[in-house]
């Protein structure tokens, strides 16, 4: 992993982001309707729409809008949200923070649970434990988030059995308990699919590692089973798991859209849906930019982690 490599990767990310934003801009401008119509809704009169369009600069040709937008970005100004009349950086920034809290909680929890679970399944291959974990994983991957979330709402958060709040957001600063209480269900919903995915990956990788010659060699050296598993088997099964996790972050970024909607989590996913519905172009742009950027960056980080986990992997 050389510096040159890192720089090249980062440059590639910028290029990708540039392409993505241009594509999104082009896409959104061919859409019927615009923010002004959406803001005023059915109760607006044509002259009010025209007035608002002028106010929002929507009467300019799209390439001018894009040009202005890019010029703004280069000055560090993401513009104003058309629908919310707030600086995009503020709207998106807050939402991103909230989403990151949710996503990170889900990811960390999932990683912490999924890896041992997958390892356990591999160790107990063919037993009831393996079967149970397998069934759970399969079910996890087959239930779409909106179904899981709905079921959770009915069974765990319904007012009658209200173990958990039915959505809502509490910031963790100074109220970590409240945060944990509110984040539990959405994080679980998000995590379920990833849990299944990662634990299955770890299981198959671990199973392969366990049948490898060097594990056999380690056991024949008389090492304790603990050491064989922790020092020899686990680290070697992790690199592929990390690759999967980074891919799953992409999935997570999609998953938040549904989960945030259902659990009233004020994050990027919901903001994006809202912005799409309202043709709030600057917000759509910023959110896509951010999501794509996060995804690309997480891929880069995962490559770095993999290189750290596995000394054979070298990027130049």
């Amino acid at each position, binding site marked *: 992993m050389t510096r040159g490599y890192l720089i090249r990767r980062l440059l590639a990310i910028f290029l990708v982001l540039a392409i993505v934003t241009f594509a999104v801009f082009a896409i959104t401008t061919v859409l019927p309707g615009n923010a002004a119509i959406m803001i005023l809704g059915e109760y607006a009169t044509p002259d009010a729409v025209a007035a608002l369009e002028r106010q929002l600069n929507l009467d300019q040709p799209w390439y001018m809008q894009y040009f202005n937008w890019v010029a703004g970005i280069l000055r560090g100004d993401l513009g104003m949200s058309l629908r919310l009349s707030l600086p995009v950086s503020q709207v998106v920034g807050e939402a991103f923070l909230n989403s990151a809290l949710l996503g990170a909680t889900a990811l960390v929890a999932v990683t912490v649970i999924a890896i041992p679970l997958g390892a356990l399944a591999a160790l107990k291959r063919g037993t009831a434990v393996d079967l149970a974990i397998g069934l759970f994983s399969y079910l996890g991957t087959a239930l779409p988030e909106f179904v899981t979330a*709905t079921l959770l709402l009915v069974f765990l958060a319904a007012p009658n059995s209200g173990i958990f709040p039915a959505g809502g957001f509490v910031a963790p600063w100074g109220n970590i308990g409240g945060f944990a209480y509110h984040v539990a269900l959405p994080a679980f919903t998000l995590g379920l699919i990833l849990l299944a995915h990662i634990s299955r990956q770890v299981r198959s990788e671990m199973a392969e590692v366990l049948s490898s010659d060097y594990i056999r060699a380690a056991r024949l050296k008389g090492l304790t089973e603990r050491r064989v598993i922790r020092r020899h088997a686990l680290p070697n099964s992790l690199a592929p798991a990390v690759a999967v996790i980074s891919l799953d972050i*992409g999935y997570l970024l999609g998953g938040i859209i549904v989960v945030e909607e259902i659990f009233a989590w004020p994050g990027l996913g919901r903001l994006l849906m809202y912005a799409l519905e309202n043709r709030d172009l600057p917000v759509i742009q910023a959110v896509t930019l951010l999501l794509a950027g996060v995804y690309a960056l997480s891929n880069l980080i995962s490559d770095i982690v993999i290189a750290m986990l596995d000394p054979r992997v070298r990027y130049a």
Partner: protein
Amino acid sequence: MRDFFSSPTAVVGTTLLVIVLTAALFGPWIAPYDPQAFHPIARLQGPSAAHWLGTDQFGRDLLSRILHGAPATVAFGVFATALGVGVGSVIGVIAGVSGGWVDSTIMRILDGLLAVPDLLFTLLIVTMLGGGMEHALLAVAVAFTPGMARIARSAVLSVRTRDYVRAAIARGESGFYIVSCEVLPNALSPIVVEATIRVSFAIMIGATLGFLGLGAQPPSTEWGLMVAEARQFMFRNPWCVAIPGLSIAMAALGFNLFGDALRDALDPRRSH
């Protein structure tokens, strides 16, 4: 084949798949009622002799709706995947076979597209096209294309350096023969396996779009939409949410299990 069915995964997966595909192919004919017909006196009922799976808010028969929705839901997954896999594979094979700058150009573009998460990508395309089933299908297909192209390319690459391909090159075979007779048949299995598993993703994404109001639209009987429509009534009649929800899970599970079993069965390490 006997080997294939010796794994429980394969048996369960195939069984689920048969059920789901039967529903998808013959559902509309075996449905006891017109899926749109109202039965105002029997609204929001649980399972009964007259309505085996109960009814929804208009008193429409859920079993009939599920059966009618099967083609929409499953065919959506299958066609979206087929389209994405087809186009993706062609791109991937072209990249893998030609190598050089063609390969690297294609790969750079794919990398760019892959940088956008699947659902986000789909969402953007769907909103661009304005929602609806066909547009959602197209969007899922487009979203699948880069990933599939990658898989196809790597399958081709791994086959391309095999000795039997090199033997064909050394014999002086034409490029067409090499690709169609030596490379493709052997590169196909990872593509098929991935495609099978992706059908389940496609079904889930399709249902999610239906749920978000960007996919199928009323009065369609697509399952995701059915869940969305029934959610308001979930406390009054949990069946009308659970049934389509579980149907989606069943279809996704079926394809998932089947794909996994297929992967195991086709895994060269296992077959030796």
